């Protein structure tokens, strides 16, 4: 399985993602944002970080970079694209995913472990996954998912919510919502379910000595689904 991780100026989770993908069997290539063409890929990952210093709006500049044209074509042809944290912000700014990520409700940069509950498993990212509730790490200032009333209706009608913020027992409520996200949304798919954006970082949970193993479960399952 071939994967590509895009590095934008200001990306800082690109190498972590590279390590994670390789650990679970992907042949990964790092791709510079100014390149025009994607290498042959089964998965393209937009990593976390602070592309372009979060100028104007998070992800807005990166969403217009040269490589994004190839990524839009790749996604429109059914290619699997995953955006983590800033990558999620880039995906909504590019129009591949609906909505927007606003400043966290209580204006704090949030850096902590959270629990997320998988909502829709009927896609390549979470199909047959062993667990429903994952402990992942979040680190963001703008993760407060928001969209219009019409958009949220469409998102629910098409079962596009990938992950909810929950507690460790899977209860999705106000208390388990760290940043004010609409309906506790932590991650969403596009309509076709080949594009996933999420705020939590699974690549930070691949080593029991450092953090945890819930990311390992996610990546192992992901590569099996893409085979």
């Amino acid at each position: 399985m071939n994967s590509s991780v895009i590095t934008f100026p200001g990306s800082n989770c690109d190498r972590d993602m590279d390590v994670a993908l390789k650990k679970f069997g992907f042949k990964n290539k790092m791709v510079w944002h100014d390149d025009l063409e994607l290498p042959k890929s089964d998965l393209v990952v937009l990593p976390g970080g602070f592309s372009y210093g979060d100028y104007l709006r998070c992800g807005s500049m990166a969403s217009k970079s040269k490589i994004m044209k190839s990524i839009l074509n790749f996604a429109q042809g059914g290619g699997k694209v995953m955006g983590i944290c800033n990558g999620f912000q880039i995906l909504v700014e590019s129009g591949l995913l609906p909505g927007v990520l606003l400043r966290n409700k209580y204006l704090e940069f949030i850096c902590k472990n959270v629990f997320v509950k998988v909502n829709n498993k009927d896609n390549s990212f979470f199909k047959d996954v062993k667990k429903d509730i994952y402990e992942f790490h979040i680190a963001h200032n703008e993760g407060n998912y928001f969209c219009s009333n019409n958009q949220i209706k469409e998102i629910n009608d098409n079962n596009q919510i990938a992950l909810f913020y929950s507690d460790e027992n899977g209860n999705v409520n106000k208390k388990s919502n760290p940043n004010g996200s609409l309906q506790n949304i932590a991650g969403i798919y596009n309509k076709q379910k080949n594009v996933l954006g999420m705020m939590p970082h699974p690549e930070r949970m691949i080593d029991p000595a450092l953090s945890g193993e819930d990311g390992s479960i996610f990546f192992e399952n992901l590569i099996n689904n893409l085979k």
Partner: protein
Amino acid sequence: MKISVIITLKKDVLDPQGKVIHQTLDGMGFDDINEVRQGKYFEIDTKENDKKKAQEKVDEMCKKLLANLVIENYKIIETQ
């Protein structure tokens, strides 16, 4: 030609920064404020000398980059 654009958050979008500014102003004694909403202001100096064309270009810039129409409105407020 210089064109100014103002970008504001749509009505139903939460503006926590505006809220904090409101609270601070309130604490400073400006206690008759109903609401504060924070926005953005741009000055674009363009080589285009035709007013209409320049405004059309800036309109396109707003739609494509300067504003996110999910949460923001924009208005070209001055051309000189």
